[in-house]
C-alpha cells in the first residue's frame, strides 16, 4: 500500500493496494464489499486510475466492488525501464494475474483507450468469469484505422524512432501535456498535477511511448497479431451483456469506431453518446457516465454475484 501525499489525497482519497504480477508491483484501488460484483475500471494512455475517480463512490453506493488498477509502467505501479515489458501480451498477462490472485468471479470489464483491448484480451483468458462489458472510446479490431492514428501531425511523429524518445521522454509531450491539453472542462491545477506527477521522474514514461507504438496500423506492426486474435474471438462475447458509452467529439476514437464495434458485437447496447467530452471522457463527464452505466449493470447482472 502506498502512502500518498496530502494534496493527492484531497482529490484521490482511496487507499491504493499493491499486488505482485509477473514479478512487478501493480497498484490498484479496491473499494466496496469483497463479496460484491467486481467492476474492473481500466484506463489507457497516458492516464492512471485517477481517471476513474468519479466512478468509484457511485459504484460502491450501488453495491458493487470497484477495482481500479494502474497498468505496469503507469500511475503508482512499477515503471520498469525495459520497453520489452510493455507488449500487449505483457499487459494482458498482468491483468490475468491480478484477476486470478484476487479470485475475481463474475467480473465486469470497463475499458477506455488501451483499457479496451487489454481488458477484453485478459477477459478472453478467463471468459467463464466475465459477466459484463462496458466499452468507451476504444477499439478491438485491426480492420478500421481512423485519421488520427495515421496522421504524422502529431501522432506518428510523436512516437517515431529516436524522435519519440525526445518528445515523449525528454519533453514529456504526452505524459505532461496529453490529458490537460484536451480537457473539455476547467481542470484544477491539482487534477492536472495528479495526472502529471506519476511521470515526473526522468525515464519514468516508457509506457507512454510503447503504447502508441503498439497500435496496429498494418500487418507486421507490433500489436497486430494480438489485436487480430482479439478481433477473431469477439464472437465468443456474444452472450456477454455489453454497453457502449461514447464521446463522439473524441478525435482519437471518433464515432466510426463505435459503429465498427456495433458491427462486431451486434448485441451491444448503445452507444449512448456524451457531448462536451473528448478522448478522456471519464474526466470530462465521469459522473454522467457512471450514472448511465449503473442502471445497465443492475439490469444485466446486478451487484451481487
Amino acid at each position, binding site marked *: 500500500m502506498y502512502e500518498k501525499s496530502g494534496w493527492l489525497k484531497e482529490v484521490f482519497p482511496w487507499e491504493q493496494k499493491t499486488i505482485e504480477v509477473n514479478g512487478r508491483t501493480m497498484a490498484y484501488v479496491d473499494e466496496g464489499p469483497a463479496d460484491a460484483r467486481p467492476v474492473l475500471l481500466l484506463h489507457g494512455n497516458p492516464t492512471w486510475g485517477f481517471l476513474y475517480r468519479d466512478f468509484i463512490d457511485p459504484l460502491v453506493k450501488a453495491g458493487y466492488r470497484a477495482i481500479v488498477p494502474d497498468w505496469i509502467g503507469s500511475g503508482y505501479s512499477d515503471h520498469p525501464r*525495459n*520497453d*520489452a515489458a510493455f507488449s500487449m501480451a505483457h499487459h494482458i498477462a498482468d491483468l490475468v494475474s491480478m484477476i486470478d490472485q484476487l479470485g475475481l468471479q463474475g467480473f465486469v470489464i470497463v475499458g477506455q483507450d488501451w483499457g479496451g483491448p487489454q481488458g477484453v484480451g485478459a477477459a478472453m483468458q478467463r471468459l467463464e468469469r466475465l459477466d459484463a462489458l462496458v466499452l468507451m472510446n476504444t477499439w478491438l479490431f485491426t480492420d478500421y484505422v481512423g485519421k488520427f492514428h495515421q496522421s*504524422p*501531425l*502529431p501522432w506518428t*511523429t*510523436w512516437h*517515431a*524512432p*529516436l*524522435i*519519440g*524518445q*525526445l*518528445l515523449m*521522454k*525528454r*519533453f514529456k*509531450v504526452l505524459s505532461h*501535456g496529453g490529458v490537460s491539453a484536451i480537457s473539455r472542462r476547467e481542470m484544477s491545477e491539482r487534477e492536472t498535477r495528479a495526472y502529471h506527477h506519476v511521470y515526473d521522474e526522468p525515464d519514468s514514461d516508457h509506457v507512454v511511448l*510503447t503504447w502508441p*507504438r503498439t497500435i496496429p496500423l498494418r500487418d507486421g506492426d*507490433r500489436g497486430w497479431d494480438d489485436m487480430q486474435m482479439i478481433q477473431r474471438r469477439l464472437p465468443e462475447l456474444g452472450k456477454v451483456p455489453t454497453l457502449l458509452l461514447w464521446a463522439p467529439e473524441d478525435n482519437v476514437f471518433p464515432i466510426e469506431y463505435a459503429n465498427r464495434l456495433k458491427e462486431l458485437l451486434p448485441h451491444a447496447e448503445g452507444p449512448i453518446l456524451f457531448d462536451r467530452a473528448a478522448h478522456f471522457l471519464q474526466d470530462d463527464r465521469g459522473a454522467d457516465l457512471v450514472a448511465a452505466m449503473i442502471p445497465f449493470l443492475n439490469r444485466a447482472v446486478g451487484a451481487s454475484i
Partner: protein
Amino acid sequence: MKFVTPSAEELSYLRSDPLLWEQELDVRPLVAESIERAAGKRAGRIYWRSAHDHLYTLELADLGRGRPSMAMVYGMWDRYEPRPPEHEIDGDLIDLCTWVAEVSDTLDPSHLSRVLGHAGIKPSWPAGSVVRSPEERFANLPDFSYPPQYVEIEGLRMAYVTSGDGAPILMLHGEPTWGYLYRKMIAPLAKLGRVVVPDLIGFGRSDKPIAANAYSYRSHARWLRRFIEALDLRQITLVCQDWGGLLGLRVLAAMPDRFTRLVAMNTAIPDGRGLSEGFMRWRRFVMRKSSLDASAVVKMTLSNAKLSDAEAAAYNAPFPSAEYQAGALAFPRLVPIRPDFPGAYDNRVAIERLRTLDLPVLLPWGDADPVLGKLEPELRAIFRNVAPPLTINGAGHFVQEDAGKEIAGHIATWINNNK
C-alpha cells in the same frame, strides 16, 4: 549534420552521458534502414559536433534482425565539468531528430518542427536563469562615456563599445574585469581603426547566466566566435590580456582568416603544463569563494596606477551581488591546469594551428605580474612572426591599468610598421 572523427586522445578526456536510449529503433523498419544508410553503418558509433560545439555520439546496435535495432545517444562532456545547460542539450537533440527525419523517406522534418511548435518547445534560457546588471550602476563611469551597443548571442545580450573607423581593433578583457579596463587605450587606437571592446558573457554590461554550468571554456569561445560573426569583423587586430587571450587565441585558431594582427599581453593558451604557483594560489582562492570583490582584485595587482573610488566602483558596477558573479567565479576553475583536461587538449590543437600562422605578433608584457609575468616566452615560441620583446617594466597583471597609454603608443607604432 556534419559527422566528425574525434581522436582517441580527445575521447579519452571526455565522459559519456546517456541522453536517449532507443530500445525500439526498428519499430519502424524503414526508419531504421534509413538511419543505417545515412550513418554508413549498422552497428557502432558516429560522432558530430553540435551547434553548441558539444560532441555527441549516436551508437547503433545490431541485435541480429538485419538492421540497426537499438540506438543510444550520448553527450560527450568535459569530464571535470558539470553537464551543460539543459536547453542546449534540448536544441542539439532536436537537431539530431531533424536529421533523422531528413534522412528517412517516411518522416518529414517539417512535421517535427510543427509538432515542437504546437507543444511550445523552443529551447532557450529558462526564465530567471539569466540576470542583467542594472543600467544605473554604469552611470558616470570615469573616462568611459562610450555608448553601449548590444548584439544578441544565443539568447544572451552581449554588450560592446566602439570608437573610430576602419579595420577593427578587437580588445578582449579577462577575469574579473570588463571593457572598462581598456579605457586608456581606446582613444589613441581609435585613430588607427575601429576599436571594438566587448564585455564577455557574465561580465560588464553583458547578460549573466546565474548557473555555474552555463560557463565553459568552449561556450565562451563559441560566444566570442558568434560575436565576431554577428558584427562580421574582418581584418581584425586582436588585442587581448588574461582570459581575453585564453579565448582570443582559441578563436584566432578557429577562424584565422578574420585576423591580421595579434597583440597579446600577460596571457596564455594553457596546455595544462607549467602553470605558475601564483596562478594556482589564485585558483584555489577563488574556488573557495562565493563572491568576489572585483575592484579589490584589480587594486591588489597594480604596481604603478592607483584606482580612484569612482574607478573602483566602475569595476564593481557589473556585480551588484554574488548572483551576478557566476561567470567571474567560474573562470579560474575553467583554466585547464593539467594536460588531461579537455580544454588542454583543445588548446594543444589550437596551438598547432597557431604555429602555422604568419600574422605579425606583438607581446607587450608586464613583468611585475606574479600570475602570468613569466609566460611571454611560451607564447613567443608559438608564433613565427613576433616582434622583439616589449617588456613593460614594473607593470602588473592589468597592464592596461598600469601602462595603458604607453602600450597603446607601442601598438600604434607597431601597427604603422606592419601595414
